[in-house]
């Protein structure tokens, strides 16, 4: 068990446990927010670990930081009581449990049908940390999901770093953790969505102010 796997296991356990704590244990909103903070931080760490460095950092800043702080401020603003009423009706509860089942179902279906079973996550610093390349390549070739990776099936040796051989952006990706490639993708090929996104954020700001601001009366 390498250090990375160890780190992944620790962070995953932290995320799952703090999520469970938030959902089940936390009695007050402040406790829940604290658990959420822990969970989101762990998730950011995992994101960095599996190769989404920039995503992980941004996630940490925006959600682990700003959003959690915002939530706490709202708790301070409006008070945290509530949710202490008598239990809701049986039928409603049945419905909610049905929804829970559906959520679990979605998760199971996605996990079950995802073609990546048993395939190591590539793109972490170097192939050596994940394991012997030959073994990985053999696993890739044997696995039915390899049919979906034509490139991987054709170049077993390149399966770990297919991008390096094929695309300059991908080469940058492996070299510098993907920041440059990410920047190019965001500001070149996805420039229009990005601009639309900024408009969305602006309208969200305006909308929040309009909704939460006190009326003159």
């Amino acid at each position, binding site marked *: 068990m390498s250090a990375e796997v160890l780190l992944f296991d620790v962070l995953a356990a932290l995320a799952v446990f703090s999520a469970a704590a938030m959902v089940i244990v936390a009695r007050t909103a402040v406790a829940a927010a604290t658990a959420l903070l822990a969970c989101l931080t762990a998730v950011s760490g995992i994101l960095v670990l599996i190769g989404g460095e920039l995503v992980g950092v941004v996630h940490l800043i925006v959600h682990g930081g700003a959003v959690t702080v915002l939530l706490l401020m709202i708790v301070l603003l409006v008070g945290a009581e509530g949710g202490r009423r008598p239990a809701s009706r049986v039928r409603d509860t049945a419905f909610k449990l049905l*929804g829970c089942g559906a959520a679990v179902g979605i998760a199971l279906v996605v996990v079950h049908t995802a073609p990546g079973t048993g395939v190591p996550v590539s793109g972490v610093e170097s192939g050596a940390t994940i394991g012997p390349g030959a073994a990985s390549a053999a696993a890739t070739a044997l696995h039915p999901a390899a049919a979906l990776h034509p490139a991987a099936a054709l170049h077993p040796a390149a399966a770990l770093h297919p991008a390096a051989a094929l695309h300059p952006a991908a080469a940058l990706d492996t070299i510098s953790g993907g920041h440059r490639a990410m920047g190019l993708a965001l500001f070149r090929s996805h420039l229009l969505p990005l601009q639309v996104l900024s408009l969305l954020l602006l309208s969200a700001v305006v909308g929040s102010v309009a909704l939460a601001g006190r009326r003159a009366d």
Partner: protein
Amino acid sequence: MLSEVTSSFLRFIPALPLLTGVLHLVSIGLLRRRLSARAVTTISSAAHTGALLLSILAFWELIALDDNAALVDRVGTWIGVGVAPSVFTADLAFRFDALSAIFCLVVAGVGLLVQVFAAGYMEADQRDDRGFQRYFGYSDLFLASMLIVVLADNLVLLFLGWVGVGIFSYLLIGFWYAEQVSARAATSAFVVGRVGDLALVIGIVLVFWTLAAAGSATLRLGEIEAALQAFDGVSFALPVWLGGHPIAVAVIAGFCFLIAACAQAAQLPFLLWLPGSTAAPSPASALVHGACMGAAGVYLLARLSFLFAIAPEAAALMAWIGVVTALLSAGLACVETDIKRVLAYSTATHQGFMFLGVGAGDPTAAVHHAVSHAFFQPVLFMGAGVVIASLRQEHNLLRMGNVGSRIHLTRICMWIALLSSIGVPPFWSGYFSREQILVAAHDALLIPLHAPLYVLALVAVGLLAFSVVRLMYLALYGETRFPGEIRMRIEEPEPIMLRPMAILATLCVLGCTIGLPQAWADLFPFSVKDSDSIRRFLAGVLTTSAVEQSPSSWSVSGQVVGMTVLGALPAALLYVFRPELPQKLETRFAWLHGLVANRFYLDVLFERGIVQPMLTLSDRVLGRWLDQRLIDGVVVDGTARLLQRLSDRVLKHTEPGTIQLYLALMLVGGLAMVIWLLRAGGAA
């Protein structure tokens, strides 16, 4: 098979008046900008002159060709459906053969003259500010439709023109739409016309089916006749409760075309829209009744004379309808007091004679009579219009009298037209055509009861003479029966109105030369060879099934002349020399007068027999039961009530307002979507 020669200018004959008509209507309807009267008249008469010149040119080309030839102008495919071999095409194509030539010349020529007359007449009679141009818009389009009818190369295009004639006659009859009488008359004319349209469509479809079943799917006029043997032995069986006898398809199609022509030419079942239609402006009456609409019916029948030759039952019915209509409407004309209605009835009488001619198997005579009729009847309508306008819209004959002494020239024209109309031999065009019709009727041994048919036709001749002479004397002679101060203002109409009347009156005289029977021509001191030119001209196009005309038709001639005199003289006697006698006779024979004055109670019959049951059916069954209960009550309200209950009892519970339930439902939906998407992706 007729030989066909391509000619590229035929399309402009209907296109010119069509363009100007559209131009007028666009100008007043869309642009809201009225052209000056002078511009309107110039444009319209230029278009009609162009159409007439082109017709003459085409005529010139036609007579240079062989007999039986036709000019054809194929603009393009209008309707093309199906795949070979069961393909149907209707071309936008025009055909100019002998029959079309005659009608085209008449319609274009008389149309031009009437339009010129209307330019003067409508100028003086504008009741609203857009009336002048509106009139010319309608009448140009009417004439264009009429030209399409007579020039159409196939029955579908003919139908297009036919419907156009119906629509624009409706608009012309209801020209003064603000007056309730006009509006009602227009509506009834329109409704009757649609019955005819339906019959025409059925007839066309029957012809097409029969021909298509025989492998020659065509509706081209020239090809239908060539493929006529397709009708041999094809028949429908009547339903068992009607006896189960088979009826030949040709007969059924013949009936359909006959009904269509009856509706257009105001023959018997449809006679009654005619009197109301005189609400149109007088030039429109001259155009619609004098020259065109009835002529369209007669044209259709003459065009399909080959069909009626193999459908003797339909032909016989046509002859009888013609005679009975002629008789009834001539009788009605004898007691009618509205001057234009008298003329309208006499139109129906003449068209009855034309039907008789086609039905008796001599379509040439009918066509000839249609031509004569198109010469003299417009003059009478125009003259009546002059009289009416000078008496400030007075229509009642009993409040006229002695108008003629102020309008000599009009009176002369009307006399010429009148003599032509009642058929005074030898030099008035109306005489010979009608004589030939009666000869055909006399010899039509195939028609059941042909002897009484002929006798009734003779009676109609007499009644017609009586009624028209009566109109003449009541309107133009005798004592003055209207306020004296109006009398001083009666003036001869403007030359622009007088000249068309004079030209048409001249044509009434000269018109006899186109169809002078050889028996008469032989009477001349100088020798005339082949005098009956219209018969020779049409010989290749029309199918004459009448017994070959006997050289000595003199007995028929004598009887016709005798009946004319018998009708005309009493009228002169009664209304000129003993003006008090009609009153006495009226009281003496009150029952007869009442019968006729009430239009033989046909109105009542129609009202009680058809209109009232229809109204009751519409109101009680269709309106209250079907529409209000079934459609409104069950379908509309019922659906609404069902949805309301469904929402109230069931659907609203899916909106509990609880956010978490929505979230639960959303997740269930998401699960379904994920499963479906992944399954679809896996399958692909």
